[in-house]
């Protein structure tokens, strides 16, 4: 490819695929290289999840509720990954002086974020598996494996929509300084509440539950519990509607992420907010 000639479509696709793979590889390699991360992201979230399992045990609730917590704990791992390693990532990159390197390259920002998402999913899956395996082995929570395949299908669809939402958040965080950090923190426990990570979201009531269901992770978890536990899951949205809604949310979020990234990058350049040190 020479500078005075427009690259072909094939070259553009190859370049962007390369960016996706390169960014994903960094995530995967880094997730296993630092031992303290492996311990910190598997053992310790498991301990917090265990505390909530023991809440139900202390209340003499049916064991199925403990399984709700274990599934919720696994989904929390993904949500935290979206928050801290997708949404806030451009903020970290800006703090470390690397954001401009992304902007110099001719690849799409979406490709970089897509790579982050793929790598993040791979990295977090090992943590989520540890949480589910630990919950099953230590607390003997009932997880019916005969319905695991359709649940896994919905789980994949949910992850796609959740990480697409992460891309939108990433564009918003692009312009922020220290408030990015606090905003990410604000999206933790309040989202744990409205997403029903530890209890069926139907308990929130029709209005709050409907608003919460706009988050794909709420909807996905509700559906996965319904697949695994049927009526006993106290489902909120009828299961047959959940996959098509997730597909619509995925398409909508990808479109919004693309528009939002372009807008925020332009604003950032105009206002000189894309470089920052010691926020």
């Amino acid at each position, binding site marked *: 490819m020479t500078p005075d000639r427009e690259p072909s479509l094939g070259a553009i696709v190859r370049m962007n695929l390369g960016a996706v793979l390169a960014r994903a590889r960094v995530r995967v390699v880094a997730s296993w290289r630092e031992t303290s991360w492996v311990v910190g992201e598997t*053992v310790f979230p498991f301990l917090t999840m265990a505390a909530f399992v023991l809440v139900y045990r202390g209340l003499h609730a049916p064991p199925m509720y403990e399984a709700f917590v274990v599934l919720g704990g696994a989904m929390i791992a993904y949500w935290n990954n979206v928050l801290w390693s997708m949404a806030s990532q451009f903020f970290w990159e800006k703090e470390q002086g690397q954001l401009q390197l992304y902007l110099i390259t001719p690849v799409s920002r979406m490709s970089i974020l897509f790579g982050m998402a793929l790598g993040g999913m791979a990295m977090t899956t090992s943590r989520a598996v540890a949480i589910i395996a630990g919950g099953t082995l230590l607390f003997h929570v009932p997880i019916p494996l005969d319905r695991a395949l359709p649940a896994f299908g919905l789980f994949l669809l949910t992850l796609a929509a959740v990480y697409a939402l992460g891309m939108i958040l990433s564009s918003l965080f692009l312009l922020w300084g220290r*408030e990015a950090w606090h905003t990410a923190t604000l999206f933790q426990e309040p989202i744990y509440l409205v997403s029903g990570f530890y*209890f069926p979201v139907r308990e929130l009531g029709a209005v709050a539950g409907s608003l919460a269901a706009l988050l794909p992770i709420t909807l996905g978890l509700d559906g996965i519990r319904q697949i695994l536990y049927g009526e006993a899951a106290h489902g909120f949205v009828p299961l047959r509607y959940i996959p098509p809604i997730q597909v619509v949310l995925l398409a909508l979020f990808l479109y919004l992420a693309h528009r939002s990234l372009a807008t925020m990058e332009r604003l950032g350049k105009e206002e000189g907010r894309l470089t920052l040190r010691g926020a």
Partner: protein
Amino acid sequence: MKRTLEVMRAASWLGWQVEANWADPFLFVVYSIAKPLSTTLILFFMVRVVARGAATAESFLYLFIGNTFFLYVTEVLIGISWAVFRDREDFETLKYIYTAPLRLLPYLLGRAFTKVVTATIGVSVALLFGKLVLGLPIGGDAGSWVRLAAAVSLGLVSVAWLGIALAGASIIVARHSMNLNEGLAGAFYLLCGAVFPLEVLPRWVLPFSLALPFTYWLELIRRTLTGRPYAVPLRGQSDAALWGILAVSTVGLAMASMTWFAWCERKARTDGLIDWKTNY
């Protein structure tokens, strides 16, 4: 002593600016109360969803109290460690402590005080929410509030010294080890029975729980606010015994933390870690 207090006051003010000046006061208050209110409501809905079983309003009251006051542990433990990492690597100001006529320990205690203040905002709002919105029977006569203030203060001394121990560790480890400190707060949340009765812990875990001062601290607070014991393994302990255990463990923790912190600080200076940058 006067100089130490001055350093603590200045560090607290600096900590307050770092914590709060990124937002207007209203937004900051919303931020401060979001976490405690959310976890309170999570527990509320968890109890409600099984309310047809054995769960009662009293069950929730005990969970509520433990969860609310545990906020101090999370905020202070994580807050002091983060102050070290942020000062060392982001603001690159930790080294300047040594060019000023002050010592690191009172500086960090001052930063811990800021976290106590921000946690107090969250705890106070959560208590008001519990009493006024959820209708929980919290409180009692003036004497019980005085005892509560004394118990909370003693526990906070313990929390602050444990925070100093973690800050010592933070000086000599890389920034990305931060999640170990965060995880430790999660481990304490589980081990001290903040949101469940201790008797549901596996039998082999109970000795670890009973070795933590926070276990006795939360039991003391629960007894002060409700007038009744909660954890079955501690039913044999009188209130006076709980006070004694908490006081003795706090003194022991303070001495151990001071020794550990002094060693860590010496090692950091010897190995050139005071201006270490691991966030590249």
